[in-house]
């Protein structure tokens, strides 16, 4: 019960701090920009392909358009997950330590409320905001691609599910940081970790370029274990790709190496299991650390 009171209070705080308003305005702008950009690029490419076809070009225009749509939607969703990731890190970092620093938490925790209930309430409310953001934004982008280009993602539900998992991982780890570190230090550590995870993804991608470099691929995986955010995004991006894209001739021939910020292979089951266990472990550690903390 108390956790829900804290969750409601956290949502009120987000509204009062104009966080919700800013989020909605920026999201609408983002989706509008994506829709306009997507439609313009798609139609101009469609025209130039038609002209090239009239001149006897050798490219299959349908395949070309699908490749372009795929690139645009993956790129757009990459932007969504990037913004959501930063939002998750900031919200998590601002969830506990600033309340301790300001002293506002003293009166709250002097109530008949356990530290577990307090953290659960904070996490629930922030997770609800972030999940709403990710679901609404990714659905909006995929809808735009569908309306303009008739785009069909391979498995939209799995793609969105994994993007949701990614923000939960980031929120959980920065909430943990917020219970043990001062706000600024936590922000720095979280951004560094996030950057490292991103770098791990790139290293892994480079390692996967044919003929393949096992050492780099393993290094990429090792870094991803530290914070499996980018690995989960790559897993999500795989499910965004339409089935026809994966069997397209360019891939079958091994000419194309795929997408640098996405993945043309599904997530390894072991990494998925780790990614699910990761936020649970972070929250468990956060509760243990917060219980021991003197205010």
């Amino acid at each position: 019960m108390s956790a829900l009171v804290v969750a409601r209070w956290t949502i009120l705080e987000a509204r009062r701090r104009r966080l919700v308003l800013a989020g909605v305005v920026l999201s609408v702008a983002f989706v509008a920009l994506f829709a306009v950009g997507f439609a313009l690029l798609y139609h101009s490419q469609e025209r130039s392909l038609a002209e090239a076809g009239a001149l006897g070009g050798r490219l299959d225009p349908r395949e070309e358009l699908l490749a372009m749509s795929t690139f645009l939607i993956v790129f757009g969703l990459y932007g969504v997950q990037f913004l959501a990731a930063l939002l998750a890190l900031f919200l998590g970092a601002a969830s506990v330590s600033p309340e301790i620093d300001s002293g506002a938490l003293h009166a709250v925790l002097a109530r008949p409320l356990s530290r577990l209930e307090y953290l659960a309430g904070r996490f629930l409310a922030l997770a609800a905001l972030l999940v709403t953001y990710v679901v609404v934004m990714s659905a909006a982008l995929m809808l735009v691609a569908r309306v303009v280009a008739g785009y069909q993602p391979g498995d939209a539900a799995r793609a969105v599910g994994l993007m949701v998992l990614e923000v939960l991982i980031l929120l959980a780890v920065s909430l943990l940081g917020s219970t043990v570190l001062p706000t600024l230090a936590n922000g720095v550590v979280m951004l560094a970790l996030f950057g490292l995870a991103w770098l791990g993804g790139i290293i892994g991608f480079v390692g996967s370029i044919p003929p393949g470099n096992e050492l780099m691929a393993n290094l990429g995986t090792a870094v991803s274990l530290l914070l499996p955010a980018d690995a989960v995004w790559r897993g999500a991006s795989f499910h965004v790709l339409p089935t026809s894209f994966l069997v397209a001739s360019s891939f079958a021939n091994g000419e194309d190496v795929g997408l640098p910020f996405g993945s043309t292979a599904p997530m390894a089951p072991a990494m998925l299991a780790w990614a699910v266990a990761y936020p649970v472990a972070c929250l468990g550690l956060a509760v243990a650390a917060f219980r021991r903390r003197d205010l």
Partner: protein
Amino acid sequence: MSRTASADQTAGIAGTGSAVPAIATSSLRKDFGTRVALHDLTLAVQPGEVFGFLGPNGAGKTTAMKILLGLVRPTGGEALVFGRSPAEPAARRRVGYLPEHFRFQEWATGAELLDFHGRLAGLGGAELAGRIPELLERVGLAGRGGERVRRYSKGMTQRLGLALALLARPDLVLLDEPTSALDPVGRREVRELVRELAAGGVTVFLNSHLLTEVEAVCDRVAIVSQGRVVASGQLDDLAGAVTQLRLLLDRADRELLALLSRHGQVVRVEGTAVTLAVETLDVAPDLARLLVTSGYRLYGLVPVQRSLEDVFVELVGEVREG
């Protein structure tokens, strides 16, 4: 069980009543790294008492209070609030608290903050709808509940803190320097509030370094210095433990001091005024006769009641020197 045994023991030290004490601590200790904030604190506060916890800044008063609220974990010893460990959330159900720095979420309005705390304390929405305006009125914030806490002055914020402390109709109220931001009128209002609470049977535990505040409202006090209780007891007993006589004479020569030393201890000599610590006031008439027969002209002989401040400065000073 060991819990009740220690509670009885601490009640025994306080020497009053046999009911479960509102607050009982035994050998409570808190270290922050190498700094010892609290050294072996043992005290008991009985239900309905107004207890003053006096001490200079940094004596460990706030740390003790935070332990009683479960905000800080003791390094050693035990603390009980109505017989329960403050680490259990349920033990805090009957407790109201005004923190020393009274900082609250500034983005919220006063009424929202009261509503949030009320719900955490288990009060229902309907009950709070009536309780919140009543409390705002009681602490002098009538009609200001809709304003953001950010816009409140320091004094208003402290008043809001008092409303929060009283919100859940507590049996025990812990006030940490409750008048630090208030003007003289506000201070008087808080004193009246504390008296009202006491009249209603509420136990009040008051941290303060303002002696007049404590003298005005407290039944019993403990003086802490450097994490230890250096004196505790009824206010009158503490202040009246030693009696002094102030003598005003025509001269204060060596013979006089020798004469006085036989009847008490000379505390101070200022010109021809001598302050003498005596065991009982009964020596006064004999002393007057003796001085006159010895050829001194006696202009005045007044018993001086030591103030709490004298006791405080003396005790805290001793510890600092030691």
